[in-house]
């Protein structure tokens, strides 16, 4: 387990590759791997574009019931999100996207948590379990 920096566009690609490797090692199906990687890609881009850069911690985890999965924590020290409900709404966007990044990523994973403090940054943790 290591922290991958997210400072540029190619770091987003590295996060995807690492999430793919861990998801495969957790025994996830190709479809679940793809969902996890896609969600991670959305969140890594948010860290870069909205958070002004940060880091991703990618780890293989095991549930109490013995299921394997992949967990990724994205952390930035950017401006934070002032209206979380709005940010999680489909179609709402501050940038050039389609406003599906955050809400779409949440739909693609099994567990999703977001902690944000206006002015001091945002942490998003996503977990996807093997079926």
């Amino acid at each position: 387990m290591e922290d991958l920096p997210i400072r540029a566009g190619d770091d987003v690609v590295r996060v995807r590759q690492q999430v793919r490797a861990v998801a495969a090692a957790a025994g996830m199906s190709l479809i679940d791997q793809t969902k996890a990687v896609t969600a991670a890609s959305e969140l890594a881009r948010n860290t870069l574009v909205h958070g002004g850069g940060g880091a991703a911690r990618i780890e293989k985890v095991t549930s109490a019931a013995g299921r394997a999965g992949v967990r990724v924590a994205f952390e930035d020290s950017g401006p934070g999100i002032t209206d979380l409900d709005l940010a999680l709404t489909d179609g709402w966007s501050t940038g050039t996207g389609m406003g599906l990044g955050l809400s779409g990523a949440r739909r693609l994973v099994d567990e999703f948590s977001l902690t944000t403090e206006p002015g001091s940054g945002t942490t998003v943790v996503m977990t996807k379990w093997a079926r």
Partner: protein
Amino acid sequence: MERVPILKIGSTLLVSIQVDLQDQSVQQLQEDVAERIAATGAKGVIIDITAVEIVDSFIGRMLSMIGSMSRLFDAQTVLVGMRPAVAITLVELGLTLDGVQTALNTEKGLRLLSGGP
């Protein structure tokens, strides 16, 4: 940043994405396709994503924009070779790729462009 090559076959541009797309690459591709259509008068664009492992909302939006933009140059865009896992993920993500038509593979994409069955 890796640049995606654009081939021209007759009046069709063929774009085969073989790299792990970062945002700048797909943005660059949009500009390159526009310039090539304008320069060649191509009537169709085939984008082959057989090798693409994920399409997230940004990449999807860019592909959609390439389609809408090429229509302004009187060219049709067909997206071919989407992996099943990518298709399932796109639907769950809520992404509809407006502006582009789709076909199962390059051969069917070419047939679609030539107006065949």
